[in-house]
């Protein structure tokens, strides 16, 4: 204890000398809280929820952030073919992520798979694991989230070295056979700090670039040069996680469709079938499992074969089978709701406020010039001129993608 104190004290004096002169009784971090007194700005509403006082300012900030995050309207690659590579080498056994790197990766992949199919209903996903220096395909490219999650849960063990080259070569092999309109991607969750490859990895990276495969890596340990090169060359994103929640955030960033690069895929017309769902209680043989199934199921409109779930390819005639809701999930990218504009509460004449006293969406009272009781911003749709509250604005633009006012006008 003694020698250590002697060693550190001189350094402390050098560093903190100035601070001690100013406020001896309070540490710097304490002062930040003591002077700000941010808790005093909080009030409780009628039901006991905490409210920040300057609601209007906060709401404006949120709107600015949201407008900035949307950015310019770009084309996105909606039909994606993605291989998720999980590194289950020796390094994945490390317990710096809880319960282990492997466990954290498995949890993230599970969340990712669900989110991916929610946002990209027509896309396909496959899993690859690296173990003992060998890459192995766990699941083929398919549209069923449950199959991937089941396969991953059944294969949780780690050993040996990791090899990026083996993984991307394997993924490239499978991705080379997909239709030309698909966007090819590889997402690697990499635990190891090294890669043990059979050949020159630069050749593999060049091959990936030639095949228009976008490779992204999420690292769990530290930034590695070869991963950065791989992402840079193929147009992907490289990020390194610092904690479990950060890891999840980084992995889920790959769920929304990425911006489409002009060369990466060809626009084409794809022939698709929209099968009808069979009535409950009918018995039929399904073509995918070759089993007798009771109820549900869909019938291919071309060859009348029965399949169990959508989207898929007909096992008999090869027609791509989707349901119209799958397509409709992506339409809000095409026809977005115009951004609402803030209406100045002070400038409005009182006459109009009598008519537009309530939010058109949720019937909540809107702020008026007279009363100070309701804080917040008042927003107007540029198309239908109806007024909305802040909460409805957020909901309409982030989840609903419909303006209730415009929808209740005859076009």
């Amino acid at each position, binding site marked *: 204890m003694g020698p250590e104190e002697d060693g550190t004290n001189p350094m402390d004096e050098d560093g903190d000398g100035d601070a001690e002169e100013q406020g001896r009784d309070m540490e710097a971090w304490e002062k930040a809280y003591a002077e700000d007194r941010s808790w005093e700005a909080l009030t409780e509403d009628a*039901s006991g929820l905490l409210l920040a006082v300057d609601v209007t300012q906060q709401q404006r900030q949120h709107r600015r952030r949201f407008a900035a995050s949307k950015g310019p*309207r770009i*084309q996105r690659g*909606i*039909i994606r073919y993605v291989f998720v590579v999980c590194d289950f080498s020796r390094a994945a056994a490390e317990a710096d992520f809880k319960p282990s790197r492997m466990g954290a990766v498995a949890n993230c992949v599970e969340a990712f798979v669900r989110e991916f199919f929610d946002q990209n209903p*027509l896309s396909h996903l496959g899993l690859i694991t690296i173990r003992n220096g060998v890459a192995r395909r766990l699941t083929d490219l398919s549209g069923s989230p449950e199959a991937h999650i089941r396969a991953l849960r059944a294969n949780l063990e780690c050993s040996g070295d990791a090899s990026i080259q083996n993984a991307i070569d394997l993924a490239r092999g499978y991705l080379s056979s997909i*239709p*030309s309109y*698909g966007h090819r991607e590889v997402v690697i969750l990499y635990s190891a700090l090294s890669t043990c490859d059979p050949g020159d990895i630069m050749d593999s990276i060049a091959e990936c670039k030639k095949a228009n495969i976008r490779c992204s890596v999420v690292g769990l340990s530290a930034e590695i040069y070869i991963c950065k090169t791989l992402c840079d060359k193929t147009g992907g994103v490289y990020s390194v996680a610092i904690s479990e929640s950060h890891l999840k955030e980084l992995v889920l960033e790959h769920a929304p469709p990425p911006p*489409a690069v*002009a*060369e*990466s*895929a*060809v*626009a*084409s*017309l*794809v*022939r*698709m079938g*929209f*099968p*009808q*769902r069979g*009535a*409950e*209680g009918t018995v039929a043989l399904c073509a995918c499992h070759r089993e007798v199934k009771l109820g549900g199921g869909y019938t291919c*409109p071309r060859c009348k074969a029965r399949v169990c779930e959508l989207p898929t390819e007909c096992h008999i005639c090869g*027609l791509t089978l*989707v*349901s*119209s*809701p799958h*397509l*409709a*999930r992506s*339409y*809000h*990218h*095409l*026809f977005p709701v115009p951004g609402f504009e803030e209406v100045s509460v002070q400038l409005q004449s009182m006459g109009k406020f009598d008519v537009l006293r309530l*939010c058109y969406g*949720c*019937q*909540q009272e809107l702020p008026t010039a007279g009363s100070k009781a309701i804080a917040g911003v008042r927003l107007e749709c540029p198309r239908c001129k109806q007024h909305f509250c802040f*909460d409805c604005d957020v*909901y*309409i633009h982030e*989840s*609903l993608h*419909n*303006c*209730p*006012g415009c*929808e*209740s*006008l*005859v*076009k």
Partner: protein
Amino acid sequence: MDALNATDDISQVVILLEANPYFWGGRSNGAHSTGPANFTFDRFLEHVLLFINSLHLLNQANRIVVIATGATSCAYLYDSNAAELSENARTARVSKKLSVVEKITQKLEDFMSKEAVYDLNQGTEDNRYSLLSGSLSMALCYIQRILRGPSPHPLPRILCLQGTPDAPPQYIAVMNAIFSAQRSLVPIDACIVGNHHSAFLQQATHITGGIYMKPPAPEGLFEYLSMVFATDLYSRKFLQLPRASGVDFRASCFCHKKSIDMGFVCSVCLSIFCKGQRTCTTCNAIFAPSKQPNPAAAAAQKRKVS
């Protein structure tokens, strides 16, 4: 755990009331009669008001909102939340019930007179359709407000009383509303009072886990409403409710608005066409000849969605 869940019994029901004058008045014109033969709007309203009162009776904490779906506009007719706030709590139960009826009929009269004014101005073909997408969007906005409120909040659900056939131009908006309802776990129930099945609402009920029913005899609407749609979500598990007899998952093409079961889809913007085309009319993409995996041909193409 489920058995002790106290909030299960309290429902927030948003009723979307078919109030299209063209639909209910269509029979007298005879031209495009879509309404049922001997089922007038008065009778329909009588059944619905009875149903609303019985929902209040089932649990006095139940909350009900009624939104009118018209041909040219949508409007809130009744909100039991707002009523409770403005009214004195000591009002006798009978008078309160009367006031529910009175309130709705009064608002409905206002609404109908506005609709009638619109009709004089523009008697277009589109009036055959009701603005389902508008009332669904309003209902979801309202439900979000309930979900934001203090918990435990009542369990929301939407009941569509639909009579008019589906309006193809509303397809995207209705689907957006359905997915949003699915994300916030709000079931959409549908009771069809017209002559036609509604493919929109069949999909809505299938995706959100609601009940779809087209009563064979609309004159007994109250019976159907009270037997099928009155029970709260928890109790539904124990009931034998009508099951879907096949859902129409066909898409309608963008070029002719026809329902098709096989078609062509643009890989850039997912527009649906019933015939093969050279360019996409929605996003102006130029299509490569199909079945030739030839990435080099893509470079020249203009691909911005506008």
